[in-house]
């Protein structure tokens, strides 16, 4: 089995984020449609489309998730958050019809992550959003598992093209398992190999130092 010594902080599960996880930090960079519920004095320059000194009340702007989470409270005194299109009724129906045809990479690429995080903002539609995200995952899982366990030594780009970030990491795990098993079957499991890290350093050869 290939030993892995770089073990990054994994993303959080469900509605939780892991503070030090690079994946969760990038997830929380995704933008949400929001509306200011009060004036934000002296911050006009942040909202580049306006020329005013302050951000007026009722401004519609795209805010990164981390900022929306930080400013949101259940009385909506500072901001209110709208659901992005793909989590709303129309798209939810499409997902429930056939989850396998949807290009979740284009729609996301953090479809499951962002969908889970949306649940932090109280909305009457939250139960439906949660259900749709879950059912979509259930609907697509079988195909991802099958393809990751059967694609050996071939170009998998067509298979991962329409997967979101979570699904791609599942696919990679499946492939790693498959490759390890094949190595074991061939009797190569006891072969000591050069570490992947070393091989990659050799290949890259530090181009920035040669500049």
């Amino acid at each position, binding site marked *: 089995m290939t030993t892995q010594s770089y073990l990054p902080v994994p993303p959080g599960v469900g509605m939780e984020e892991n503070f030090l996880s690079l994946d969760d930090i990038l997830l929380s960079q995704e933008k949400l449609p929001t509306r200011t519920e009060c004036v934000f004095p002296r911050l006009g320059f942040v909202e580049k489309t306006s020329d005013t000194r302050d951000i007026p009340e009722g401004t519609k702007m795209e805010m990164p998730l981390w900022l929306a989470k*930080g*400013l949101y409270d259940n009385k909506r005194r500072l901001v209110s958050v709208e659901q992005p299109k793909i989590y709303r009724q129309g798209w939810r129906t499409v997902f429930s019809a056939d989850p396998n045809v949807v290009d979740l990479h284009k729609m996301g690429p953090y479809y499951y992550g962002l969908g889970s995080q949306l649940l932090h903002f109280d909305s009457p539609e939250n139960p439906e959003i949660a259900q749709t995200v879950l059912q979509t995952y259930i609907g697509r899982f079988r195909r991802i598992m099958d393809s990751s366990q059967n694609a050996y030594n071939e170009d998998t780009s067509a298979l991962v093209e329409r997967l979101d970030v979570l699904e791609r990491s599942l696919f990679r795990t499946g492939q790693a398992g498959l490759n390890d098993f094949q190595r074991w079957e061939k009797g*190569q499991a006891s072969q000591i190999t050069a570490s992947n890290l070393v091989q990659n350093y050799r290949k890259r050869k530090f181009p920035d130092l040669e500049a």
Partner: protein
Amino acid sequence: MFCEKAIELIRELQRASDGQLPAFNEDGIRQVLEEMKALYEQNQTDVNEAKSEGRSDLIPTIKFRHCCLLRNQRCIAAYLYDRLLRIRSLRWEYGSVLPTSIRFHMCAEELEWFNQYKKSLATYMRSLGGDEGLDITQDMQPPKSLYIEVRCLKDYGEFEIDDGTTILLKKNSQHFLPRWKCEQLIRQGVLEHVMS
């Protein structure tokens, strides 16, 4: 929008997803810290104004800047921590002596951390297995035999084995050597384990 530089640092690490260590972005860190200083000072001013002149309308703005400060702090902490995880894995993949090219990518504090980590690991290994200690960086997979067949992938020079004899490791030469002497060199890509 604030915190753009901070997220760039994170993206830089995410691009090297295989665990490689990119160069330490000293400039990037400096810029994030400067932005944090500016945000903090602006908030100090506004907090004083809000208290002395009763301007509670400034509170949303103060909260906004505070969120940005927390975000920058999170990004820097995650950046530094993830780099340490990569540096730690270097000890296990490369051994205790790092090539200069990799050392260039580390800042002084990271080099210091690596040295301390090496020492802690060595102390721990010495404390195992009675008087001799136990090298746990060997035998990462259960060994099947004491001696293995290896082929040299590049010219390495002379190599001494336990009974005193020296072997010349020249490119493409093949040898039958004790496993525990070769493991390190195989992981470093100098030798190749030949399976019969």
